[in-house]
């Protein structure tokens, strides 16, 4: 870990309004070089990482775990998990048959629905 200096932390902080942290430097991210204060440096497997790089590392680890943990039961990513009796397209649209409905979502659309299991509800006031 690098010694403390006067360089300001480059992470953003703030509950209502995102703004630069600005606290004194404690370390630099071992991967992207971002300057970090004591509160914003994460130690992951011996590396000092910023929040973004630490999350990417955790995601990579999670993906590896998921590959070996398949389950055929419906999950929150399956539209039928939520849409028995509520939704824009009605229950009859989903599943069954070989015809393709033009309103069906694609894998790319899933990006905008991916936060359905996000744990930051009521914690991120930049959320919308």
């Amino acid at each position, binding site marked *: 870990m690098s010694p403390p200096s006067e360089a300001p932390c480059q992470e953003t902080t703030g509950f*209502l309004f995102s703004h630069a942290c600005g606290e004194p430097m404690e370390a630099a991210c071992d991967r992207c070089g971002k300057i970090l204060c004591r509160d914003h440096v994460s130690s992951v497997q011996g590396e000092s990482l910023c929040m973004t790089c630490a999350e990417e590392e955790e995601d990579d680890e999670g993906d590896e775990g998921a590959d070996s943990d398949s389950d055929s039961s419906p999950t929150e990513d399956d539209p039928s998990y939520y849409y028995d009796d509520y939704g824009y397209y009605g229950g009859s649209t989903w599943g069954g048959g070989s015809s393709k409905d033009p309103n069906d979502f694609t*894998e*790319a*659309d899933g990006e905008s*629905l991916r936060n359905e299991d996000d744990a930051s509800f*009521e914690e*991120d006031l930049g959320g*919308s």
Partner: protein
Amino acid sequence: MAALRWLVYALGGGMGHLTRACALARLAARRGHAVTLLTNSPFAPGLPLDAVLGPGVTVWRPGATLDKQGVREAVARWLDAERPDVFVVDTFPRGLGGELAPLLPGLRARKVLIHRDLNPAYVERFDVARAVDAFDLLLVPGEDAPFAGHPRAVRTAPWLLLEEGELLSRAEARGRLGVAAEEARPVVAVMGCGTPAEVEEAGDIAARLQSRLEGSAVVRWLVPPGAREPRAPASDEGLPSRSVRATALPAPPHPSDALLATVWPALAVLPGVDVLVGAGGYNTVHEARATGTPLMALARARLYDRQALRLRAEERADSVEAWVERAVQLALARPGRGPGPYVSGTRDAVARIERLLLSA
């Protein structure tokens, strides 16, 4: 009816909550009511809110340094000090940080929820059904919502910030976008909003469209005022205020700076736009549909809002590459504008809230 005191709670990121709340607030103020609007939109400091909202609306931005507990205390103090006749909450019945849930039962105002779709995981985990029951009226503005069948729920058309007569003519709109009156090529506008990063990405998309269209269309990058200029902090005094101070550095140069058109509300210039390229946010989508502007949109990931559900198949691109490609095809096809009609539910919403107050 007699002038009453309205508080409109519009905490939430992006511009959607603020824009919808502004639509309601300005019409309520025109009816003579005194309106205070609470926002933490990062775009708010740069917007010409005075001009759009008029003199009857006060905007409050809570202190930027407040933590979650600080927000709870500030909102509680705000409600206690303002003593509203009606408290209108946009989208989040528990408040964005859950701070309203314990406050609403003791609040002596009439309570109105602007009820919209919410991430079902949030609805389930945070017992949103219970929170909804604290409201005297649920206004459902143009889209389906989990409790749209509630006995106190009323559907309206989507709310738009401007009335039809306030939109610019096609010639005026093109002039506002820096397009010559004699220009025969279609105008493709890329909407930059959502988050500061998405504003910049919209500039990238505009540059790609400019390159792909090779002069067969005029491309513009629509950006709200202040989004690429120095940012101002919120009022740390915790008092309603519109005064701002710029402290940050300006945005770095962008390859699409020559395409930049700084405008808000973008709705005003849509009569001059032939193809709108944007995300799937509430205002972008409903403004495009109301003005008959062909839209090509990418559904963005949000914590609560599910943009993919809002978009029709013909409006929705599956990836950034498809977004660009389909926008190019749309511009080259030169589609005609949709037939309208221009319908906004905002005036209906104000009338329904006034009716609720009369019945109190």
